[in-house]
């Protein structure tokens, strides 16, 4: 089982920039991209079918058709994707959308464009760690993608079985 990150972004250059900045994670977790709500659903279905787990969604707000915030709200309502950590990566979400993302989707983090690559990587590491801790997954298969100190706290509790 691998952890999966979904990048939901309609502009190809931005999508690629996100992928590039997260390239260090590519060996450790599954990174998928989608340009709209429809493709996102398909990608999530693929992730599930492969036995992997959607751990983190990095979503733009402005998408063709359904907005990024609406996708996040729908993901939170769905039993299978409810646990995924949600980050809005956006330059132009207005106040109402932001409020909806926080109140209705339980948004975990907000990243303003343009982002700092280092800060983004740190945030992804932190959010993946949150996901593993909250779902009490075995952190060891994913250790290199996580905040080692916090992840190892889960291992410590296991004892010498």
């Amino acid at each position, binding site marked *: 089982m691998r952890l999966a990150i979904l990048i939901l972004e309609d502009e190809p250059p931005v999508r690629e920039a996100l992928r590039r900045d997260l390239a260090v994670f590519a060996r450790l977790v599954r990174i998928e991209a989608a340009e709209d709500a429809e493709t996102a659903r398909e990608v999530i279905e693929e992730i599930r079918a492969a036995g992997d787990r959607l751990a983190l969604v990095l979503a733009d707000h402005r998408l063709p058709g359904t907005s990024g915030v609406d996708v996040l709200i729908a993901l939170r309502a769905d039993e299978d994707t409810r646990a995924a950590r949600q980050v809005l990566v956006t330059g132009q979400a207005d106040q109402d959308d932001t409020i909806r993302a926080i109140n209705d989707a339980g948004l975990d983090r907000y990243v303003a464009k343009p982002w700092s690559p280092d800060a983004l990587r740190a945030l992804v590491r932190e959010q993946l760690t949150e996901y593993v801790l909250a779902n009490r997954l075995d952190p060891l298969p994913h250790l290199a993608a996580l905040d080692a*100190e916090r992840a190892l706290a889960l*291992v410590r509790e296991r004892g*010498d079985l």
Partner: protein
Amino acid sequence: MTSLPSQPHVRLTPPTPAQVLGLVTGPLAFALALWIEIPDLGPAGQRMLAIFLLAILLWVTEAIPLYATAVLVILLEVLMLSDQALIGGLVDPPSAASWFATLANPVIILFLGGFLIADGAHKFGLDRNLAAVMLRPFAGSARRSVLGLMLITAFLSMFVSNTATAATMFAVVIPILAALPAGAARTGVALAIPVAANVGGIGTPVGSPPNAIALGALEAQGQGLSFVGWMALAMPLMLVVLFFAWWFLTRRYVPKGLPLALRLTAEFDRSPAAVLFYLIAGATVLLWLTEPFHGIASSTVGFIPVVALLATQVMSGEDLRRLQWPVLWLVAGGIALGAGIGQSGLDAWLIGLVDWERLPLGLLLLLLVAIALGLSTVISNSATANLLVPLALSLAIGLPIDPTAVGVMVALACSLAMALPISTPPNAVAYATGEVPTRAMVLSGLAIGGFGALLLAFLMPRVWGALGLL
């Protein structure tokens, strides 16, 4: 609706082929042992044989969690071998309460104290601060630093579980790894931690569950060992294997003259709660080490910090809840299994199966150590000890050797198994860092574990005898 309903979502995973095998063969062997007529084995022995076979198959295949098998053993002993057995026909059966009492066996109480102190040491940052202070003299070259890391890891592991020690030390070491050139040096440092954690666990009775299982079984035979008594038997081997491991790992992986700056800051917690904790933990360890002078059993001493830490509210009910109960229950299951094999007469019957006297004692001990090492390389050290300690102790009845030596040997051999990522949790952590290729772990595990096993089988009984320890 920010507060989403957070129902516990238990996902039942489908069993692996090995687990299916255990689920099928376990009950089958259980039923067969009860059904077949076995000469020279009374009804109690036959029932115990069924339980033992079931336990072997479930522990080896991990068809159900290890601790579930442990409580199953206790339940079956109550249902089949106690005064409340569903089917009678037993001569003077033990009370059901005595089987349940294995869950609070003195050795379990000893571990309870050990666990609470270990958890407290982490809660107040004592483990990390001690590591920082003890590492200072070793700063400079990478080879020296590895020696320091290994000695500290082993020292912590004598009192804290191997897994928790490895978790603490890797939290310290992972940032250090990044400062080393990629490749061999990182592998060496990352391997040093699990090796030292595994080896350090043999040092004291509370260091690792196999020690408790052996102690519990020996105590049931009236061959109890004091805390320092165990240390005297185990620490010489621990230190020799540790230095050998350092020599092996540094010669092989860490280039001479490679600099490594370990700058760890120690900030000891000076809050009243922390100071109280230091006092209580220190006093407990002191009492453990001075048992020959005051005569208070180590398990009784182990219960003192439980009372003192809870009464002073230095540790809370929450800390109590977070203790590693699965480990305690796994050990209890092993003690119950050992007691059952001894009380039902199954031990005498098992020994009668083979003409042991025709095998030379040295070969027999080597075989015992090899089986323990091999089995615990692929399954849990504690489960291995649960299965082998009672067998080895029954075997010792007919041998010209002190049963204590045999029990301790099996327990120590279980801790020397570290050739695979699955061998021990510390190995799994090292592997997870991505710096240790499986090949390197196999090689170091075979070399270090093999070296320790040979010493254990051939040299240690003589050393113990020569020192007058047994």
